[in-house]
């Protein structure tokens, strides 16, 4: 029987590195498709561009079964509480890609009806510019997210998501206390954040 060299059988690494290697190559995307960016997303998922090459082919339409949300389109102020609920329902750890200018900054819709960037209400990891971005751009965004996951620490991701849950609890208590609709609660939280010079409500 040949002698087994321990260096051939065992590799030493950091826990963060090996877990993140697994996470980045098995993203489960959920499309939050509300506008034309969702059409580009369909193209990105199907055979010509094929996101399966990056280990993210298991598309799910339930937040409970996915960990990468792609926001594809214009989010209105009326939709903001729904977006927060759906983000809260996703499996942890979770990541968000804001696809297109409408999701990233409100885009050309600078009106009372449109949320001026989803990063005001939920944490966003990667922004993809374009109106709409081509499938290659969205794939590049996913690749950037993979790079980010590779470098992050497990506890930082956990804290990052915990901060969002705190803001959700705050939203619910303000809503119950003042008897507002969820839309108006988020609006008041945003106004308050703006007065304090903070860009976000989480």
């Amino acid at each position, binding site marked *: 029987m040949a002698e087994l060299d321990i260096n051939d059988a065992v590799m030493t690494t950091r826990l963060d590195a090996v877990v993140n290697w697994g996470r980045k190559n098995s993203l489960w995307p959920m499309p939050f498709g509300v506008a034309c960016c969702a059409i580009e997303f369909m193209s990105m998922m199907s055979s010509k561009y094929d996101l399966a090459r990056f280990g993210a082919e298991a598309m799910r339409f339930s937040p409970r079964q996915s960990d990468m949300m792609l926001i594809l389109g214009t989010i209105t*102020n*009326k939709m903001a509480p729904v977006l927060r609920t759906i983000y809260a329902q996703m499996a942890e750890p979770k990541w968000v890609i804001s696809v297109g200018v409408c999701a990233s900054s409100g885009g050309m819709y*600078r*009106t*009372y*009806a449109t949320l*001026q960037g989803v990063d*005001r209400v939920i944490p966003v990891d990667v922004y993809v510019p374009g109106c709409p971005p081509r499938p290659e751009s969205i794939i590049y965004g996913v690749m950037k997210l993979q790079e980010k996951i590779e470098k992050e620490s497990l506890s930082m991701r956990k804290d990052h998501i915990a901060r969002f849950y705190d803001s959700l609890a705050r939203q619910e208590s303000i809503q119950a206390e003042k008897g*507002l*609709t969820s*839309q*108006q609660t988020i609006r008041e939280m*945003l*106004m308050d954040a*703006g*007065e304090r010079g903070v*860009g976000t409500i989480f």
Partner: protein
Amino acid sequence: MVIEHIDAQIPGAILDRHDFRGDQTIVVAKETLLALVDLLHGEGFQFLVDITAVDWPERPNIQGGGAAGRFDVVYHWLNLASQERLRVKVPVADGATVPTLTGRFKTADWFEREVFDLFGIRFEGHPNMKRLLTWDDFPGHALRKDFPLDGGDVFCMEGCTAPYNNGERGGE
């Protein structure tokens, strides 16, 4: 033509009229609106295409005696048999109400709710006078010209060029 019939049957109802390339527009007072609608319905104008409103902030907000009030409520009708169209404008002051058309036209329900939501004009006798598009406790009425375009968004302080408020935060 329907306008001659209106003149004959409700004399004095039409306060003003104009005609642009065959597009007939008449202005009536809100007191004669329901009688006019009954007449129009009998004449075949049975398709209420749209109800909307126009804000004229420079008009004095008083009604009667030649003054029109701040808003025009605009109705569009189509006669499906003759393919004639008719636009009816009803001037109304801010705070005043307009009689509802929901008794005659089911489609008026959501049209009137939309006008109430975006202009704050109430319709008397409407079965469910709630906001249609924005949320229930939305501050102000979004299509009024003194409403800031960005909704008074605190993040958009610089470069806010909403009309009628000189770029300052305001509105209701």
